[in-house]
């Protein structure tokens, strides 16, 4: 579809949309946020100062995670918004207890040239997770070609992303914006939609703020998003931090990249493979666990994890694959994550039969 056709389609699609907010209106519109009918445009929420969402409004706080989900090398910009006078309640385990009216914002983008990651950042989509009265709602907003507006697309979309990689080679990717059901495919616990990333342990890290280094949880308290930031808050490893223990890095990686489905109440519960950090039984997180409902995804291997033998482990085989029916996760990536693969390979190679890391 040419650009003109695309614009026309959008015009037809949303000609009747109700909400409209002035471009400079940076006050979050609680009516729009809490409305049962989602707004047609991202700008209608008033979260950003500008319609292109480059300038966060005063009530939005950028945040980082210790170990993020791999998303095909896209840059991800994350923000939290909580309504005036309302904070999330701290929880040591699981996702923080966010108040109704919370908006979690995540924009997926590629720089034109990854060697200059901050220059010419092209937005693909901005996903909102809004805590409405009836529960969380996941809403994908798709950016237009001129980057002036993002519009709701509950049926998803396929976008063409191009960038220059670290070696100077051009890269191209068919970027799949998830549809509403696919959002739930990752964000479902039992039958409800929930956030995945903002757990105390994954937020508990230092961040740069106004040229200074600060504790992120304390920063959230100072910004009015969180009630308390205990000193003994748990912390999950950064998967790419070579100074952290290998086991902690690997389990953090699997928790963030796999456990949204592979948990006892998630979409992959029937496999019996649970990759949450809380899963203690090595068999349950894969050690010498035989596959269930795996089909050709086994790669002719017998176990999810065969200690000492990463290349005979189904888990690694499925991380390396980019073939539908074999690859894991099933959604959200089209490329293989070299750093994640290297980590898990090393971890399995150094594992003993009980699932512990061999002492050197």
């Amino acid at each position, binding site marked *: 579809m040419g650009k003109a056709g695309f614009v026309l389609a959008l015009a037809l699609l949303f000609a009747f949309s109700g909400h409209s907010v002035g471009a400079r209106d940076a006050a979050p519109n609680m009516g729009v946020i809490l409305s049962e009918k989602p707004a047609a445009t991202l700008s209608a929420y008033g979260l950003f100062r500008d319609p292109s969402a480059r300038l966060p409004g005063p009530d939005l706080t950028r945040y980082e995670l210790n170990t993020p989900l791999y998303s095909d090398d896209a840059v991800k910009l994350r923000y939290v918004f909580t309504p005036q006078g309302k904070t999330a309640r701290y929880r040591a385990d699981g996702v923080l207890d966010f108040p109704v009216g919370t908006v979690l914002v995540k924009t997926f983008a590629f720089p034109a040239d990854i060697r200059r990651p901050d220059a010419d950042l*092209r937005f693909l989509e901005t996903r909102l997770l809004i805590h409405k009265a009836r529960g969380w709602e996941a809403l994908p907003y798709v950016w237009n070609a001129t980057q002036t507006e993002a519009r709701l697309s509950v049926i998803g979309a396929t976008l063409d992303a*191009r960038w220059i990689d670290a070696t100077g080679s051009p890269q191209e990717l068919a970027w799949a914006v998830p549809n509403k059901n*696919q959002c739930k495919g990752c964000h479902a616990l039992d039958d409800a939609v929930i956030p995945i990333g903002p757990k105390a342990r994954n937020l508990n890290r230092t961040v740069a703020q106004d040229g200074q280094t600060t504790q992120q949880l304390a920063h959230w308290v100072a910004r009015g998003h969180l009630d308390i930031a205990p000193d003994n808050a748990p912390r999950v490893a950064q998967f790419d931090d070579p100074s952290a223990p290998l086991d902690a890095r690997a389990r953090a990686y699997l928790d963030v990249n796999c456990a949204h489905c592979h948990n006892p109440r998630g979409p992959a519960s029937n496999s*019996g493979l649970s990759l949450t950090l809380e899963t203690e039984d090595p068999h349950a997180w894969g050690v010498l666990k035989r596959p269930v409902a795996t089909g050709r995804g086994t790669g002719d291997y017998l176990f999810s994890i065969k200690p000492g033998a990463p290349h005979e482990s189904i888990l690694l085989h499925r991380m390396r694959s980019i073939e539908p029916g074999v690859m894991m996760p*099933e959604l959200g990536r*089209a490329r293989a994550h070299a750093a994640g693969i290297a980590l898990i390979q090393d971890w399995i190679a150094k594992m003993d039969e009980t699932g512990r890391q061999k002492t050197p």
Partner: protein
Amino acid sequence: MLRICVLAGALIMAGVGVADAKTFRIKPTPTVQADLQAALIAAKPGDTVQLAKGRYDFTSGLSLDVDRVTVRGAGMDKTILSFKNQRSAGEGLLVTSDDVTLRDFAVEDTPGDGIKSKGADRIHYLRIRVEWTRGPHPQNGAYGIYPVTSTDVMVEECVVRASADAGIYVGQSRNIVVRKNLAERNVAGIEIENSIGADVYDNIARENTGGVLVFDLPGLPQIGGHSTRVYRNQIVNNNTPNFSSIGNIVASLPAGTGFIVMATRNVHVFDNVFAENGTANVLITAYRPTITDPNYNPLPREIVIRENVFGRAGFKPDGDLKALTQMGMQGPDIFWDGSTTYVAAGAPKTEPVRISIADNKTQSGAPLRYLSMGLAVAGADFADAQPSTTLPGELVIAEPAPIKLAKR
């Protein structure tokens, strides 16, 4: 440079005018991926998504998460959903809502599973065909029709062909009816796994590696399956060489298996016709690998095999039973590994094992051929067998009540 090449068009979403309509009409146009997915999202409980006859090509999986929706085609040979070009998602169609009916269409050539329904209570599959059109191949998807962790499941008058695991697979579910289906040229024709309460009847399972399988696997959220009735089925000529990927439980299924029961209890098999199954018509066996799950019982127990008709079998034993040929024996009509004790998580255990075999007939009129290996413990080497051909005889084992599915 980023450009938007497809905004999954779906102007149907713009059609707020359809809000009152009860039927979404979908045609096999070039935008059908978006059109159909949009309809599956926009549908309200009670609505129908009607698929016109024709051939549909999809590049991504479809999903339905709205209760009480019917997806209906013009017939399993008229409305054909092809996933040959699918690039993402683990199955062709995923259903995660309750009271859904899928009827009268075909799903072909998915790279993963065909149709999966998870946590989808009271689902009804009616006259659905799932097929891999190149025939048996190790790169075919695993399951054709795949309801799992659901209560009140009905699969009827469906056709499944060439799945690399099970054609019809019902797992970790309760209250199941699988009837009047045709399962052919799959590794496993029909499989009931870790489930409680299933009636499997009036099906034809032919030319699979194994026809009908009922068993439990360890380490899953729902174990302790029981109470299955398998009756009035035709289970014939299941001799297709096993084409499952290694590692899957069915990869160890011997070609030439009619029916197999493993690691579950209270399974009643009656009024079936078995014939031309090269290893054995009926296999009763323990789960053989090492068990770490202390709550798992690998033994088949409370098994009734009665009033079936047995045709030719055992003429080409495969898998573990190939050893019979080396011993100069044929495969039997009914085979039992004979184990009554097992070891779980290192601890030896036992439990009464009752196998009742009575009132069966052979087509030839010759005596029923039965073989127990008399293994001392589940998974023991066949070299340690103490074979016996003495039928265990009739025992009183209460039959499960017929399955009644909940009304919608």
